[in-house]
């Protein structure tokens, strides 16, 4: 699908840009407009003829006038995932009436909660298993009656604090996590607001930057005041910089353009490029005093305190089978089948539904899967576009080594991961330097699931560490 370049609209011509400086090929195309505005069409094509050049992938770029996203009507039923395993006797029972914006805590211990995005009745509470053994409690709410807004946040919002953001806005669009800012052990010195999405083909956060300037500004000044962090940085693609003059008007907010080539928007790459800090192996950006928030998350905070209402509408990019994209606004918890119906996406046996982007998303097995606060994109792939993986071994061609942005010798790392030698993979071949961009799998000649091996290795090592820590704790006790 993907060639070592991308198609860009250039003065009415579609231009193939490759990483190799060759005369670009020009093709005339009809202007493509969706949602009444122009997209830079990114066509995924095959490996280029000139294999010597490194492939380059460009992020989605939003040019042209602002527009209205497709609005999905309120569904009959929403499903929300509480981030903890299901346990018997939750505080909320089936049949309970809930209002829009109502905070639902399910268990007495722990402060996890969900925010009801609709008014209705709780119809089921059940366990749900996610990727890599994550377990959630899935709460379904049947929409019923006139929409009512819960008042609890309205009173709380009079005096904003970081604790209140954590207590009420964790489950809002963009998922603004305040844990890093509240952690006294690791003081945060810089907040980076990402006006670009992490994965390819997605335009969600760029759209938010373009269309919700006021909410973002409000959110930034709130966060700045509450957290006392002096240095706030907004990262966005260069193409968006011109139009974003009005954003971050307050003092101490720095606008920074980031390179449009994947994976420049992954947090660890931004740390290196924007802040000149290299995150040591195994550490997080938060350890280094930098906290990343999506533009949408900041906008949620801003609009929540301004309107005294918890936002429940998520913006996301729907990538259809033919790679065209539609921006969608929908309630959190809407089953994705509702979005497909509204946007005329028909699904067939053997298609693939991906939550997230093409490089780092995760596939789901059902079109009942609901939109979550951090679902920035939904991608649908036709059966014939599904690229197969093979059980071939690594042939040591070195494509992955040359493309790795973290300079890992992937060809050796994957051998250790494949053999289950995870400790050695971490000690000898830089497992924890991986920034999880997925490019190694993309270029693998053998078609190995390299990225999956790496993620599996990290997951297994984490499990071992947790088990060891527990064992130690019981021994001490």
């Amino acid at each position: 699908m993907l060639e070592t370049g991308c198609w860009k609209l250039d003065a009415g011509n579609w231009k193939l840009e490759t990483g190799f400086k060759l005369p670009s090929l020009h093709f005339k195309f009809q202007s493509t407009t969706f949602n009444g505005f122009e997209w830079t069409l990114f066509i995924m094509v095959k490996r280029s003829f000139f294999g010597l050049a490194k492939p380059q992938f460009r992020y989605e770029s939003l040019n042209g006038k602002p527009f209205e996203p497709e609005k999905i009507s309120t569904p009959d039923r929403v499903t929300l995932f509480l981030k903890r395993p299901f346990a018997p006797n939750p505080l909320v029972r089936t049949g309970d009436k809930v209002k829009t914006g109502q905070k639902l805590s399910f268990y007495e211990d722990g402060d996890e909660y969900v925010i009801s995005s609709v008014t209705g009745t709780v119809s089921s509470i059940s366990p749900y298993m996610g990727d890599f053994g994550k377990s959630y409690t899935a709460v379904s709410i049947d929409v019923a009656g006139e929409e009512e807004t819960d008042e609890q946040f309205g009173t709380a919002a009079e005096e904003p604090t970081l604790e209140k953001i954590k207590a009420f806005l964790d489950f809002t669009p963009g998922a603004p996590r305040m844990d890093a800012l509240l952690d006294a052990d690791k003081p945060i010195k810089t907040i980076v607001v990402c006006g670009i999405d992490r994965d390819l083909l997605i335009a969600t956060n760029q759209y938010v930057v373009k269309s919700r300037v006021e909410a973002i500004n409000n959110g930034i000044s709130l966060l700045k005041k509450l957290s006392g962090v002096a240095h706030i940085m907004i990262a966005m693609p260069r193409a968006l910089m011109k139009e974003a003059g009005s954003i971050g008007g307050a003092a101490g907010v720095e606008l920074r353009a980031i390179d449009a080539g994947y994976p420049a928007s992954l947090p660890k790459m931004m740390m290196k490029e924007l802040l000149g800090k290299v995150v040591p192996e195994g550490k997080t950006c938060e350890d280094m005093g930098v906290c990343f928030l999506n533009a949408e998350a900041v906008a949620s905070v801003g609009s929540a305190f301004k309107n005294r209402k918890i936002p429940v509408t998520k913006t996301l990019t729907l990538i259809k089978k033919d790679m065209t994209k539609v921006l969608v606004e929908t309630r959190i918890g809407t089953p994705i089948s509702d979005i497909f119906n509204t946007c005329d996406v028909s699904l067939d046996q053997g298609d693939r539904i991906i939550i997230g982007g093409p490089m780092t998303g995760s596939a789901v097995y059902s079109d009942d899967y609901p939109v979550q606060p951090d679902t920035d994109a939904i991608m649908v792939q036709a059966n014939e576009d599904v690229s197969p993986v093979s059980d071939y071994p690594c042939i040591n061609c070195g494509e992955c080594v040359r493309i790795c942005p973290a300079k890992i010798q992937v060809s050796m790392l994957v051998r250790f991961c494949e053999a289950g030698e995870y400790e050695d993979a971490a000690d000898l071949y830089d497992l924890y330097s991986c920034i999880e961009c997925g490019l190694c799998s993309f270029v693998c000649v053998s078609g190995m699931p390299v990225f999956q091996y790496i993620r599996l290795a990290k997951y297994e090592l984490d499990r071992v560490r947790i088990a060891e820590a527990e064992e130690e704790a019981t021994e001490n006790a």
Partner: protein
Amino acid sequence: MLNQKKFIVSHAPFCHDGSRISERSYHTMFAALPAIILGICQYGAPAMGVVALAISSAMLWELAFNRVAKQPVSIGDGNAAVIGLLFGMLMPATMPWWGVVIGTMLAIVVGKQIFGGIGGNPFSPVAVAIAIMMLSWKGFFDFDEMLCSYELDFAMIYPLTALKNFGTDAISAISTGDLLMGRQVGGIGSTFGLGLIIGGLYLIIRGFIRWEISVSFLVGVFVTALLFNISDSAKYAGPVFHIFTGYTLVGAFFLATDDSSSPVNCIPMFLYGLLGGVMTVLIRNLGVYADGVIFAILVINLVNPIFDKIRPKALGK
């Protein structure tokens, strides 16, 4: 939830650049064609027979091994065919059929499959097979002897043996142009310098082999031969002669660049190629063998894992 459609669930990333092992194999074979076609034109049907038998027997050995080892059949990836083709290229046109069959068995079974198949071989399978053949049946690689029945329109002497035995006087009649255009005695597909260079450049530009290895190999040959030539020009031939004779070009573009037995990091690739070039000329000029490419490649394959430890620091290290 009833009558639900089944979707494919798999892991990220959800796209691939479409490169395949078979693609690499077929392009390698395509790149070798110019040199082989010239060889077949020169030596006729016997050369054709050797190449065809080499490819087919290599594939059959692979198939046989797959069956015996109860593995999935892997001849579809074209790797066995490439090994057979490269093996055939290095043979004299008059190689007996059983020599070819044993040679491809050595390449496929001993050189590749006993190490676990594709990607597992520590040495270039072709170099392993040729080295064993050279030690076992020396006569097959005496090109003067093997090709004595041919009377072509150029000097029917194997340049490297002539050089070894009689010094640079013996090769003064052979012009660089002749060497470049394949007007020299040698293996079926290893004499046509221009064809091999075109094939090699094609593979480099398409990204199927790494220029770092090929170029540094040739630089190694050039510099070492130049130093020898300066020290004693009556005994040691010049660098250009060494580049265009014997297996140098096949080695630089097709054998040393074998994926699994060559390094992947930048500095190691240069060191690996350079050492190969140096060893080639050292064996030719100081050793007992007329051509040192095969042994030089086995030596660099041997040190490849150590070289490949030289790598850039990973992010955050």
